[in-house]
């Protein structure tokens, strides 16, 4: 890496703030004329010369107005960011094959136009830019960050910049929020080892829950194929309708998933992640059995999915 590439990165490191809450102000905002600002100044100069040599004050007035607006924009562009407060929020687990939505809270006392937020990555991959026109008050936002691998990761440096109101100056600040994102493996279709309960117990895992217990866990509307032994007679007797009992043991009786043994481990985790994601979002009951001994009993729902993805994300390499 040459000096020309190292210098901006070193500057960014030096200028970044690492607080959990960042208030943009004079000490952490930087401003330079934009390329359009340079053109603007050149255009104003040309108009001034035209006015002076054409003995006409019309172009002179316009060029001085352009100069006055340039000076004014130096402050207005800075004020557009100054005073803005940024706070990091807790995010959800996401997969490595899609941009993670990093939740932030922006607190502003006034309208702020044309705010642009983008994560800067050390490997230089292009991150999606978010353009905002911020109303006063508290505004939760999420800035997309493209992870490169699974694991617990920090998105790095956030660049917040603006050229509003007229694009003549570029004002920016850096922030390294102390957010740890959980990134599950990318979702790649492929083989996954599927285990039934018997196979799983043979594998030595410990299962919780009492199969065949009389203590049901929940009631749900009775389906005709479930038979009379599942009917919750007490609710029928109370005249509350026909409900069927659902037992914990029954819930645990879903499919267990494990990485395919003949596939390279990281790729196997990606296949597993894909199977898990598609199955759980389709309403299947799935459990997870991982090489480090982690076992998550079959279940369904967003919380279960989150738990499984976190387990996959934090697997040792």
């Amino acid at each position, binding site marked *: 890496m040459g000096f020309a590439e190292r210098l901006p990165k070193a500057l960014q490191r030096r200028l970044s703030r690492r607080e959990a809450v960042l208030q943009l102000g004079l000490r952490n905002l930087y401003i330079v004329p934009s390329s*359009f600002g340079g*053109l*603007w100044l050149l*255009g104003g100069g*040309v*108009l001034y*010369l*035209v*006015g*002076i*040599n*054409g*003995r*006409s*004050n*019309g*172009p*002179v*007035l*316009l*060029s*001085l*107005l*352009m*100069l*006055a*607006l340039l*000076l*004014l924009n130096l*402050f*207005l562009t800075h*004020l557009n960011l*100054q*005073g803005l407060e940024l706070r990091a929020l807790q995010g959800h687990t996401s997969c490595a094959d899609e941009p993670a939505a990093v939740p932030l809270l922006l607190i502003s*006392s*006034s309208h702020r*136009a*044309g705010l642009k937020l983008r994560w800067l990555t050390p490997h230089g991959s292009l991150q999606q830019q978010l*353009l905002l*026109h911020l109303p*006063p*008050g508290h505004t939760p936002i999420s800035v997309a960050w493209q992870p490169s691998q699974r694991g617990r990761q920090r998105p790095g440096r956030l660049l917040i910049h603006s*050229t*509003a*109101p*007229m*694009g003549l100056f570029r004002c920016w600040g850096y922030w390294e929020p102390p957010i740890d994102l959980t990134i599950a493996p990318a979702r790649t279709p492929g083989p996954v080892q599927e285990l039934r309960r018997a196979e799983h117990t043979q594998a030595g895992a410990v299962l919780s829950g009492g199969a065949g217990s009389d203590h049901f866990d929940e009631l749900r509307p009775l389906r005709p194929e479930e038979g009379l032994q599942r009917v919750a007679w007490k609710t029928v007797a109370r005249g509350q309708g026909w409900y069927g009992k659902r037992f914990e043991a029954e819930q645990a009786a879903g499919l267990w998933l494990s990485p395919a043994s003949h596939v390279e481990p990281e790729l196997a985790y990606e296949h597993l992640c894909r199977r898990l994601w598609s199955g759980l979002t389709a309403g299947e009951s799935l459990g997870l059995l991982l090489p480090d001994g982690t076992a998550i009993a079959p279940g369904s729902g967003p919380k279960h999915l989150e738990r499984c993805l976190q387990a996959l994300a934090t697997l040792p390499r």
Partner: protein
Amino acid sequence: MNGAPLLQLISLALLWLQLLLQGQLQPLVALALPGLLALRLRRSTLQRPLLLALTLGSLVLWALGASLGDRTALLQSACNLLWLLCGLKLLEARSHNEQRRCSLLLLLSVGLAGVAGQQLAASLLQGLCALLALASLLALEGGPRPLGQVLRRSGVLVAVALPVLLAAFVLLPRLEPLWSLQLGNSGRSGLSDRLAPGELASLVSDNSLAARISFAADQPPPAAERYWRVLVHQRFDGNSWSAARTEPPRLQLPGPPPSAPVQQRWMVEPSGLRQRPWGGSGMPMTPSLQPSVLGTISGAAPLQERSLYTLQRDPMAEVWRRLPPDAADLQLPPAANPRLLRLGQQWQQQGASAEAKVLLARQWFLQQGFRYTLEPGSLGPIDPLDRFLFETRAGFCEHFAASFSALMRAAGVPARVVVGYQGGAWQQPAGGSPYLELRNSDAHAWSEVYLAGRGWVRVDPTAWVVPERIRRSLADSLSEADRQRLSPEPPSWVRAAVNQWQGLDYRWQLWVMGFDRQRQRELLGESRWQGLIAISVMAAALALGLLPLLRQQEPGDPMRRRLNRLLRRLEARGYPLQSGETLTSYCERVGRCQSELAGPLQTLALHYTTWRFAPAGQERDQQRALSSSLKVLLGLTSRVRGRKPTA
């Protein structure tokens, strides 16, 4: 279409209109721009090759037009090219950056239009175009907003920048022109360096503005003294009078001290002449304008654009009147106009003085029954002055001046013809300084004779024949038939409105367009600290403009800040907000102690709550209601005296 492209489109359309009215557009550009605007309005997305072909085609046509046209108007062609390119850029611009550059190109186009059109109306249109171009930049950066809001914001931004602009305009030291750049239409006053009988009579139907003069004491000279000389004709070929072939030598005068009082301020429309009108006295403050030995002042180049100059009081400037005549002032073709020659020689043989010969001539003119008319008829190419003096006896001012000067020369009195303006209308615009307005229809010719001991003296034979021409106006001195040839007078209210507008325009020209280095020196004097003062004042103006914007950055919304102000005011009067107290209960508590505030406080509590929880889209109405109740209470609390609450 919305936002920035629409604003750019309207801006360019207005610019096109202004340039069209000014006659600045070449036919191709005048036709092409509306076409390009229409294409943009229809959101036609031209393919790049087609756009390129359109651009190249336009450039070729423009180059063809420029090469076939007047070479001296090359600069104007270049401006037309820029305006055309602006239209093409508008059609091409799609991305954010391209649209920004399009706005900048629009501003440059407006600036160039400002060189050509400096009248108030043109300047207002140009200002509007520039405002729309600025608004388009705000629309680009500020996200989706209603156009009205964008325009309001750009108006506020310009208003904030205005003090800085004014400080820079007035105080920043002006540069002298580095080269000459002329875009204006080359005007023609109708006056020329050759005066043939009948030439000035054709000018009376031209009612266009020639010059405007303001006087130090806001008082014009008496009507009989309003003679404004432009050209002096010394040569007579028997048929017409003309100026000398060579430029008359300039008077080398030291010039008045800078502190000498200003006598007159002239604003002259483009005439195409090097000579500038003046009253024959006063010294021009512009160094390039100097009186000549003939009593004319002329600039370095023909006047192609509106010009402003100031005359300072200086008795030395009238030295040209005392310069003795030379042989050219007595030159007369020996064979032309024999009857005129005989009459002049007859007066010479009487052995009278020059003054007596002038009196003889006056008597003769009054006795011959001359008629003043705009249609004297053709005098023919041979001995025209003889025909006028002894046959037709009907003529306009140039007939009288030309024949009287020739008669004086024949009588041995040095004489010459002066062409310029006579009279003028005294305009008093509401709230502004009055000025004398000269129109091309005020063009006039008179004579000057050299009298020993007195120098060059003005003699106006037209005034002998028709005194009303000088005392009142041209229209009053003409017959009913001749009056028909004059421009029809508009209704009085139209005339009054036009006069007011022209008064505004005059002030605009005088104080804004005419504010040059010389005016800056007049206003500020010579100071070596001028640059520093300019920068300091600009910085102060910038700070002043930014102050309200900085206040907006204070925490809390504006309504909350106003509420806090009210609460502080009530606290100072002994009603502090207690811990955990809601606004509603606080208002009730204070209302119980201050009965005159009870109603407004109750309304405030209601409005504040309603505004805070207003559904989307209704915030503005609720905010307005809250604002008015806050205003009422802030007004009341400024008057209510503090009263301790009862326990």
